[in-house]
């Protein structure tokens, strides 16, 4: 235990660790405030789908030697609209729409990577995330956009709640439910595009789903669920960053592992309460 505390003290000497803690926590908060709406609307998988789109856009950005974030965010937002449109048309269910877009994106990423040889290593760092290469520019954009996501959810909290609870009722009392669905899609896209830098394409959707499902085990109210999810998520990210530094493990994977442990604990608490 002593060695772990030592390595924490050692870790916070490093710039990149501080950046990872800051960006990681902000993304954890954004992902978990969105998570409850997405999980309850049965859109858990949208995070996964959009992460794959982000991966493709990173390939494009690296190919064009542009900043991945700048290229990713608009394209991922468009992809999320596309998924909503596909599932609005009754001919396709939401999960089918997501898997179409998702596998198409991966295919594009692989094709681009093989055509434009030479950046495979960089691309791989986006697959599983890396905290070593976060630029100051990334930190600034990530911090600003996560704040936008968090504040927007706070402003529209009541509407998003009503639309999630019963879309038809919300529409009947005059709410523009379509607008809120697209708003959620935009906010999710931003969060995903920011998040793959740290936890990686394969694992980012766990930041959306895990804390929410964990909180659902122990909470009753809606607001309380979001609050618990946020706290759990931030604790997991912070622990994950330190543990991965101390034991030289991949950060994204450790964060997900922490989330899994938190879920197991919450599940246990729920079972014992009965």
């Amino acid at each position, binding site marked *: 235990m002593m060695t772990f505390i030592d390595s924490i003290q050692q870790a916070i000497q490093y710039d990149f660790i501080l950046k990872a803690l800051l960006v990681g926590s902000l993304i954890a908060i954004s992902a978990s405030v969105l998570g409850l709406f997405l999980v309850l609307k049965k859109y858990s998988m949208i995070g996964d789908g959009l992460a794959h789109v982000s991966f493709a856009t990173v390939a494009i950005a690296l190919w064009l030697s542009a900043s991945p974030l700048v290229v990713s965010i608009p394209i991922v937002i468009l992809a999320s609209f596309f998924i909503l449109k596909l599932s609005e048309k009754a001919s396709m269910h939401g999960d089918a729409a997501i898997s179409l877009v998702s596998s198409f994106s991966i295919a594009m990423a692989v094709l681009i990577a093989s055509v434009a040889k030479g950046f495979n290593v960089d691309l791989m760092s986006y697959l599983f995330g890396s905290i070593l290469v976060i630029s100051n520019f990334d930190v600034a954009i990530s911090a600003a956009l996560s704040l936008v996501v968090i504040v927007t959810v706070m402003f529209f909290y*009541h509407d998003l709640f009503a639309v999630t*609870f019963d879309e038809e*009722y919300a529409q*009947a*009392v005059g709410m523009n439910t379509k607008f809120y669905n697209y708003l959620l899609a935009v906010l999710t896209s931003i969060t995903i595009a920011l998040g793959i830098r740290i936890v990686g394409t394969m694992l980012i959707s766990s930041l959306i789903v895990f804390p929410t499902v964990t909180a659902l085990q122990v909470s009753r109210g*809606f607001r309380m*669920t979001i609050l618990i999810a946020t706290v759990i998520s931030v604790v997991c990210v912070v622990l994950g960053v330190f543990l991965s530094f101390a034991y030289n493990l991949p950060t994204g994977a450790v964060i997900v592992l922490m989330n899994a442990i938190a879920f197991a604990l919450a599940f246990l608490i729920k079972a014992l309460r009965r």
Partner: protein
Amino acid sequence: MNNPDIVNHNNVQSLNAEQPLKSGHLKSIILRADNITLKYGRHEVLTDASFTVEAGDYIGIVGPNGSGKTSLMKAMLGLITPSSGKFSYAGEVRDNRFIGYLPQKVISGDPLFPAKVREVVAMGLLSSKRFPKHLSLEDYKKVDEILSRLKIGNLAEKKIGNLSGGQQQRVLLARALVSSPRLLILDEPTSALDPKVRENFYGILKELNEQDGVTILLVSHDIGSIGQYTKKMLYLDRTVVFFGTYEDFCHSQDMTHYFGPLSQHKFCWQHDDLQESAEAKPTFHFHAPHIHVDHVHAHGQSMDHSHESDEGYPEDPQAEPWNVASKAPSATKTGSSDKEARL
């Protein structure tokens, strides 16, 4: 008052509203439906329906499955747009916070949904708010008031998914009422309730209608029993078959033709013997043996109709019924050979 504020909302125009609603006052029209036709794709589910709703009305909208009653209600709420015809609302009624809506399904299918009763009821106040929406302490006081009025104050902190069907229905009624609406629209509110809870629920509605002067539109397939609660009947079968008071219904020769004398007598609840038996047996159902031949199928169209055998639907008319344009005269004869005649 020559300048009513025009609210354009899915073919909705505003009417001049006479005056604030109080029971016993001069009756003002708060909703007028002119020649409403509703379509899903090519299928016409309701043809040329016209009627007026006056302040203080308590109208049962009834008819068999597939008669267009739920579609009509959705159109009134602006959820679907009529393909022709229009609804005119008294100006301040169309403003959404003056319409309370109680949907049919009890909870959004998800017992895990983490929402406390207080949070759900507070939702009813959102339509009157502007961005950024914020619920004040005063709003929550309103929520608690309506909860205690409906005698569910003790449930305020409970998770909605853990409540019984009757309790959930009352919570949703509280949500519909918390903004003090002038018009309350309910879709099959009692279909999931047991008889005792149902009586109780109708008692609350009666009080709202008579003491608070709330206008109520209640969609139901249970024509056999809602006559004892509502004041007027709007009978739909893909068009308006009858609209008026139960007294008119009882004395209408056309309705005798349409329903047969026995059914007409039972549906209109104007008779002492029925009133008494209703008190003794609140879930009175009219068990008319009938074969409900569906003219939709007779037309060769395909719509999903499920037939319930003993819900007191009318027997098919012997003669060409009054005011039913879309009815195929041959329906009773050709009938339905296969799957739809499930009796």
